[in-house]
């Protein structure tokens, strides 16, 4: 099953961030807790963890791009039970 990864709210006072670097590439296996990507918020560089086990299918945001809370960032093919 394909699961969508959306940009989480990383900062209480800011809803728009700069996308940093991808830490996983399409086709990579990801586990819950693995760092998927980095984002620069108003205060800090935030490493965002995967909430799923599966295979990263698509990266939907470019490194360095402006991104908003809720934006579709990636898709993960989740391991079926």
């Amino acid at each position, binding site marked *: 099953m394909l699961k969508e990864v959306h940009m*989480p709210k*990383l*900062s*209480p*006072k*800011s*809803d*728009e*961030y*700069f996308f940093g670097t991808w830490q996983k590439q399409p086709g990579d296996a990801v586990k819950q*807790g693995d*760092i998927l990507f*980095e984002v*620069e*918020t*108003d*205060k*800090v*560089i*935030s*490493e*965002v*963890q995967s*909430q799923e086990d599966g295979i990263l299918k698509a990266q939907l945001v470019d490194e360095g791009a*402006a991104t908003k809370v809720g934006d579709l960032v990636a898709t993960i093919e989740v391991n079926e039970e």
Partner: protein
Amino acid sequence: MKDLHTKTVKQETPKPTWLKVTYDQRKVDKMTHLLDGLQLNTVCAEANCPNLGECFGSGTASFMILGPNCTRACRFCDVPHGRPAPVDLLEPTRVAMATKKLNLKHVVVTSVDRDDLPDLGADQFVRVINEIRKYNPETTIEVLTPDFQGKTELLDRVIAAKPDVFNHNMETIRSLTPKVRYRATYDTSLKVLAYVKAHAPKDMFVKTGIMLGLGETDPEVYQLMDDLRAIDVDFLTIGQYVQPSKRHYQLREWVPMSRYEQYYKEAMSRGFKFVASSPLVRSSYKAREELEAVYGK
């Protein structure tokens, strides 16, 4: 909590790679939901703390009492300046209940400045300390207070409530204080710390914190350390200033890790009982560690 929906603005000095935190959305959402139900402000959210993800993720938070708006407009601070809220007499009980619900072994209570109130907010600190104690007798309590305009009768009231740690932040060195803080002076803050140390029970620790990256020099930081040790301040926190927005005090420098290590050594050699010196250190970050350090547990 106010949602200001601001944008992250690219700063002229890019963030160093070591200013990095890890974010686990599920854990943070769970904590945010829990806190929303408690109708309390946290300094974590109001000051937009970079450690929010880590602290919320591990089930800890620092409460900010007396409303979300501050009567002062310090140039470094992200807490909103505005019309202060009426004093909420149920807030002390809610803080006590939240402490219990989160099972906090050490709780940090801070507030906005309340220059509008006759007691400047001191009595609410007392009520909060008493309520926390009533429902959480094992929990150690740390207060991070305003300067109460240096009024010793107000400091006496808070001291009499016997928090375990009395924290009041110097924020920066002497020469930068008028540029960075508002209606607060270096000497008033020093006087507050000196008074508390001189009048508090022996087992109450006195703590302060400063930010780096505002333009301070080594000799000025060492002078500050000497000023603090001359009045026997116990704990010192040192962390990197992160400019909240373009309207705030301009960041001068991302201070390299080596300087934090240097300041740690200099501070410890001057006799502080506990020093936390690292870019992401904030006043209440992992505050329990200071008591673990002095009590060896």
